[in-house]
């Protein structure tokens, strides 16, 4: 049996605040006693930006990886040189992410794994054992969630938006029968939402001459990176949620209720070189006689339209391939898009719980 090294964190969910020390123990299992020249523990937090495929141009993809932004990088020595007895040895440790007096270059962004942006915190233990032996090492990822202290300071958009969707609010060509027949869908949706809470709102179909086949809520993530003098944006569909199947009754309030997928989301971030934000798109698909002749567009795979649709409401400059627009956006679907600001949840109870946990472990 070979000698193994593991890092066991004090919390099973591996979530820590930036203000808290990361604690745990290094577990070494060895069949024989070994001597070493010290154990070092390093914390490495960085934002990795990458531009690939998609909307990026040829030149950008040529660049490949953009230089990562370091959030934190420090190394401490847990023990000086010594010897482990055979069997299992556990060495406890505790690392402060930021010292009280320390000035850090970057904020402690929350851990996030996106398409183009990766914010990751790693803890690595290294055991050096002289020249003749291979050094032992183990790495573990821990997750940073921002506490109260790290509130975003950007102006918060209004909490609720009241929307109405008619044939006239649409910027893309519609099928003539929808255009002439007309429809009206109204509702409201929260534009500020904490990560733990569902995105909620209401929607009412007031009128529609053409039968509706489906109403979907699409959750869209927009990652932007400044590359040189340009901004590269990657939009990806995170989750689609159908709220109406078929030609629903008119003037009946339907709830909008979307639980946010935690692994794919983080609080909205607006840092200097990059940003992550989220949008909600309400898509209404109509059943049209004409559309039957065309190959049916499948609402479960809206891959084709969301990238090319010109996001007017976002207020940011976009890279859109306008050439594809007409071909890919179906004339039988209507949209409403708005930005949703994702925040941390201030759950006092949870906060206290985490605090208690930190004290005990």
């Amino acid at each position, binding site marked *: 049996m070979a000698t193994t090294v593991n890092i066991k964190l004090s919390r099973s969910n591996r979530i820590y605040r930036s203000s808290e020390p990361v604690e745990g123990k290094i577990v070494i299992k060895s069949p024989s006693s070994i001597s070493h020249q010290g154990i070092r523990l390093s914390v490495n937090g960085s934002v990795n930006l990458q531009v690939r495929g998609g909307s990026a141009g040829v030149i950008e993809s040529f660049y490949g990886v953009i230089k990562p932004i370091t959030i934190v990088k420090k190394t401490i020595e847990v023990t000086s040189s010594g010897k482990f007895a055979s069997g299992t040895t556990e060495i406890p440790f505790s690392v402060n992410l930021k010292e009280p007096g320390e000035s850090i270059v970057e904020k402690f962004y929350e851990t996030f794994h996106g398409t183009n942006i990766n914010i990751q915190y790693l803890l690595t233990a290294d055991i050096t054992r002289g020249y003749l032996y291979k050094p032992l090492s183990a790495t573990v990822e821990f997750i940073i969630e921002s506490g109260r202290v790290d509130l975003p300071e950007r102006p918060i958009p209004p909490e609720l938006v009241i929307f109405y969707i008619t044939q006239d609010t649409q910027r893309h060509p519609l099928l003539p029968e929808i255009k002439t027949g007309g429809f009206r869908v109204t509702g409201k949706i929260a534009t500020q939402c904490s990560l733990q809470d569902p995105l909620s709102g209401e929607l009412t179909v007031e009128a529609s001459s053409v039968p509706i086949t489906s109403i979907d809520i699409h959750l869209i993530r927009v990652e932007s990176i400044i590359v040189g003098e340009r901004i590269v944006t990657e939009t990806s569909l995170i*989750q689609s*949620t*159908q709220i109406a*199947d078929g*030609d629903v009754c008119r003037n*009946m*309030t339907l709830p909008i209720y979307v*639980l946010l*997928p935690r692994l794919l989301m983080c609080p909205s971030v607006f840092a200097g070189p990059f940003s992550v934000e989220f949008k909600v798109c309400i898509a209404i698909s109509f059943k049209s006689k004409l559309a039957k002749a065309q*190959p049916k567009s499948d609402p479960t795979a809206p891959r084709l339209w969301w990238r090319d649709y010109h996001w007017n409401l976002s207020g940011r400059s976009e890279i859109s391939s306008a050439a594809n627009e007409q071909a890919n956006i179906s004339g039988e679907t209507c949209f409403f898009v708005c930005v949703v600001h994702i925040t941390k949840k201030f759950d006092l109870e949870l906060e206290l719980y985490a605090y208690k946990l930190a004290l005990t472990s």
Partner: protein
Amino acid sequence: MEFEFRRRDYGAKHESQLLHRSRTHKHPLSSTLDSRQPQAKTVGSSDLGFFDPLRGVDVDVSVEEKVEDTSISLEAVTQDLMKEWKSLKRMLMQRFPVSKVISFSPISNIIMKGSKVETSSSLSHLEKTGSEQTSLEETARMINQQEYLAKVHELRDGITSAWQAEDRVTSLKLSIKVTKLLMDTTVLQFYPTVFVIVTDMLDMLGDMVWERIKQKAELDVDGIVISSLLNDFQASDICLEARETCYNWFCKVGSVREILPRIYLELAILPCWRFLTHQPMEVLDRLVMMVRGIADPLASLYCHLYMVHRMQKFGFCNSGYLIKCIKDIKDVLAPVLKDKDGYSYITDDKKLLFSLMEPAIDYIMKCLLRTGRQENNVLGVLEELGFGSNQSSYNSSHVSIVLHHLLKELPSELVSSQAMEILHMIKCSNDYSFSQILNYRLLGNRLCEGTSQASFLSSLINEVIQAASQYQTLYDYLRIMDAYVDLMLQNEMKNHLDALLDDIVTLAHDKFLSEEEQASLQSIILKLLSHFEDLQEVLPLNHFIEILDLMSGTSKTSVNMHLLNMGTRNGCICDSTTVQLLFEVSQALYDATDFVNIKDDDNRQTAHLISRFVEMVDYGAEMERHLMFLAECREAFNGIHELKETLVRSSNTLAVKALKEGKKHINFVKSCLAFSEVTIPSVSTPTKQLNLYLETAEVALLGGLISHSDGLVMSAVECLENVALTNGLKSVDVDSMASAVCKLCSLLVMVPGNPEKGVMEILKSIFSATCSSSWAMPRLKVKIFCAIISLLSTLSQDNLPYHSANPEIIGNDLLFFGDSSYKKELVLCTQLVLRELVDAIEQESSQIARGNMALEASNCISSALVMNENVSQLCSKLLETAKGCLGAKDSYLKSTKK
């Protein structure tokens, strides 16, 4: 051999053997009230604490009890409804069986096919191929129902095994796949079946998730119990990790794109919200609203059904949600009932749709009213559903299928108090989801259950009659009014009843009634009949006879049976018109039944009824007419054997009655006897014939008509002889035959001997008939011979024990007083019989029987004859035989010896 008969003094014997009589203090049948009362009291008090689920809920009971009821019934209601759910599931599976081959739309095809293929990828694959094929609909594959079910079960097993293998993601994925089956409503009839299978699976999944999270909350990482959860735990009791896991489940379920499976899956893990929030009820608000997003009426309704099931299973039930459900259902149904232009029409598809929806609506209504009752808020529920809002301009038209099931479940007190309101609602709701006629009918039936005041009933029924007469067909009219007949009768609303009967006659004028109409009419008439005590009250009703004439076939028969039954229920039938009517009725019944060829219970009942009717007829003083009537009956109901007996009895009774009235009727008595005599031979069984002959002979004897009685007795003996000839092989009821012969013997005591033909003429012929008969076994022979010996002994007395009631008839004792040749003949006869008797005993094969017979015979002999040498020799011989057969220890033997 010399014999001498023992002397008897019957008078003294009678005196000495009379039982001493004394008065009793108590009548044995009079109830002892004092002792029973406390018992009743204890029953009453124990009754209070006992909740009978079958009693349902009487809203009428006192408030106290009501409170008690609710405190118990939360559990009881839930339990009840769980049972309901089970039966509903069974019913859904059975009621909508599916033709063997079903075509499936591409959606379920993909689900069925793809065990490994991702749904989305196969969809995109279909998209590609879709352009090549002309239309996707045509690709629908044909699949066997069994195959389909097997496939679903396979998937379900996959879910459990994946769960057991700790692979919960896979089992969730499979669950989603199975739930998606419910999105396919292309084959309507199959939907309930799929629903049942899928919801079973979902219930199972829900339980598994609940258990897992509960375990997480109770155990720590190493599986040691930290704390066991109470039944009413709070979300704050749950440790963070369990809550994380729980929330994770909701997230996973929430990430399903399609609304329908998402709702179903959330409903499956609905109770888990308790781990997360203090008010899990709030979730329901949203879920109820979410279901609105399902536009397909059938899918929506069944989704509501599952929601209600899950709600009540976990005690989340609340009339508020249920009312919302029902309102939403109404909205969903609205477009089905009327298309865009407000034009409503019915198609076969829609009919099928509604029939599929019915059980679901029924169940939801049941839940609603039970919950309402448990909350003591049924009235509030009704208000919410639009009761009492009639006056306002709000035009609430109710979907009739919903209304129907509401009405079905309403407590009967409320039905009576809100009857007018309900009637108006029924009037307004005339759509094709449910027949308005049946709704009217249901209202009537429900009203009958409760007690209602006549005050509004009269106007209510007026309106109903109006509404019913708008249906121009008799069938619809009858179907509606059938339900109200009871009400009219109970509340003695004669005018309405008359109006109803008038209407029936007008509507049925000159028409041939179909089978259904017959059945409804039958039901109405039967209600009428069962209401009135006496036929006399029914007949004067307007057009009653006319309506009777409308009927035909089996329903006519049934009505006739009831009429007859009713007519014969209350003693004699004196009224001649009634007799006439019943006679016609009987004749119709007789004509409708084949008495000759078919013998079953129905026929027997009819025969019995007719006989009873004949028996009950009483013309009073017009006896001639009565006899005529009997003759008529004999002609009319020739095929009923049972009746013949009745006829003979009736005519005998008639004769006796005439005799009592005095001598002047002697000719009438003769004609009665003649009638009887003529009728008896057509009675089927010889025993009955024999008995009837004897009976008639008695009557003749009573009337002093010796020649008649002689003739009748001779006929009886002939009949006895004939038994041997005709029924030699058939098993005759020999025992009763023998006892009839004994009876004949005792009758002969009174009958004076005929000197011309020989005194012993009759006796001898009985004797010879017995000897020669093939039916008489030795045992019976012994019995009969003993009877003859006793008779002979009796006849030899100077004073007979009894005489005929008619003083004109002189007994043998006076007739042959002191006549030595008479006595000689008696002795001769005895010798003859004794010989045969001994022979008969020897013939018996069974030892024990032979012994007993020997003893019996020796007893008889010793009591009849004086013990001289001959006799005691014979007796001791018989006793020897008995000893040989029975053994010396037999107690009968011992007592006989003395």
